[in-house]
């Protein structure tokens, strides 16, 4: 795995939702990368992200691509309050929820595992549901 992505997942394992922020110009970047795409600085800090955002778009897979995600599987693009767009999915119990444009969303953590072991993954669900 990309070493910078590894750092993201190490924080996720501790249920901390963080993204890289450039130490020079403060630009937030997602997904994780080696340098700031604005000023090319290699220096960054993993800053906490609020876990609040809203729906920008979503799709529903009617075909299974991954054993972890049988159909129907919804993928949703959440525009975070801090700016980056986070493409993810919802906990299974929200699969039937009718989504709408700009619907407020919030972070939830879920424990899961695959053939490589246990992991903790950040998901988003509609606020107040």
């Amino acid at each position, binding site marked *: 795995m990309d070493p910078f992505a590894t750092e993201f997942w190490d924080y996720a394992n501790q249920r901390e939702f963080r993204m890289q922020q450039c130490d020079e110009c403060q630009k937030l970047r997602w997904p994780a990368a080696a340098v700031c795409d604005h000023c090319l600085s290699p220096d960054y800090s993993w800053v906490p992200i609020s876990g609040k955002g809203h729906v920008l778009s979503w799709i529903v897979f009617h075909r299974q691509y991954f054993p972890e995600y049988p159909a129907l599987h919804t993928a949703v693009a959440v525009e975070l309050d801090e700016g980056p767009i986070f*493409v993810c999915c919802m906990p299974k119990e929200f699969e039937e929820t009718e989504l709408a444009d700009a619907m407020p969303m919030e972070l939830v953590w879920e424990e899961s595992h695959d053939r490589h072991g246990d992991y903790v993954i950040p998901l988003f669900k509609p606020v107040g549901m």
Partner: protein
Amino acid sequence: MAGVVELDRLKRLKDTVAVIGVGETDYREDYRAGARGNATEKGSGTLNSYQLAAKALKRALDDAGIDKSAIDGLVVGGPMSTERTCEVLGINASWCVSGDAPRGIIAAVQAINAGLCHTVALVYGNAQRSMDTAYGGPRVTDAGILSYVYYAPWGMTSQGGLYSMMFRRHQLQYGTTEEQLGAVAVAFRKHASMNPNAVMYGKPITIEDYMESRYISAPFHLFDYCLINDGGVAFIIQRADMAKDGKNLPINVSGIGWSELDVDSTQLRPRLKDFYKPAHHAVREQLYPMADVTQKDVDVYATYDSFSTHLLFSLEGFGFCGDGEGGAFIQDGRIEIGGEIPCNTSGGMLSESYMQSWNHQPELIRQLRHSYEGTERQVQGAQVGQYVHDVAGKCLSVIYTRGDR
């Protein structure tokens, strides 16, 4: 920076090179043979990419009426390596690059004008069905759910999913409907039904068929997705003054344009916020003035169409209709042969052949040569053709026009 070009320098390249020959493999025949041979076992390797490319090149040379020894430049597309392709085809070129069709055309215009070569063969071969190539799903990642490729950890790796998400955004923003989008699949299938070499020849669909077809990644239906099939394409570009005396009416490369939107593309910002239109706008400011044409002059249009929506977004971005008007614009046969702006007249990648930008070029050349004269397939009096390549933030476009004899 996007959109800033030296137009006076670009204009000097107008009509300096021409397409003199085109060739394609037997898409439909190969697809049917593959289906017969591999009914239960896809991926047993009935065809080879180099074999397909060589067959297409032979046909392009025959079409141009020239010998292979006349080729001094080569553009190689698909999964083939440039070195091996030159070796297999027996060409010691003085200039050679790899790329998709529009990159190859733009590079060839530059190389020919720089004096590095004068006759360039652009070749592509891809035995992707025989090889059982995967473009999404766990075989692309294959290292556990957290291996970071696209959004694999959340079950999102499919290119179709990304374009479907972009269409949902268009629906939310402008009220575009699935039924409106269905006009693309229906029109391209209608065009394939006129093309005996198309994989989907003789299999027209109606808008009802489209609406009843299963979802793959809703809002995308099955018919919004391109084919996966084997094939090869080749065409030959030559310095325009040499092309004048050739066997065929030369088809000039009159306009070229290129602009990319790669910043923040993995988080889908240019896709979901802008539908990649800033890139479309930059390209149209390059190639229409260069070719000295406007959208109204374009008689036949082709777009990269791994998914139906490429057409919807590019017609808006290139100014054939206003932002958000694409859904209504593509109705009532407007994008069909005989309509105002016939699009992907061979059936495109949705219904003719998934040649990843390559099969669109021979079709435009034949339409401008009036090769289909006397059949329903010919766009009457076609003088100007445009290819738009709008793929994940990389936007390139080419204008072709009929040359002189």
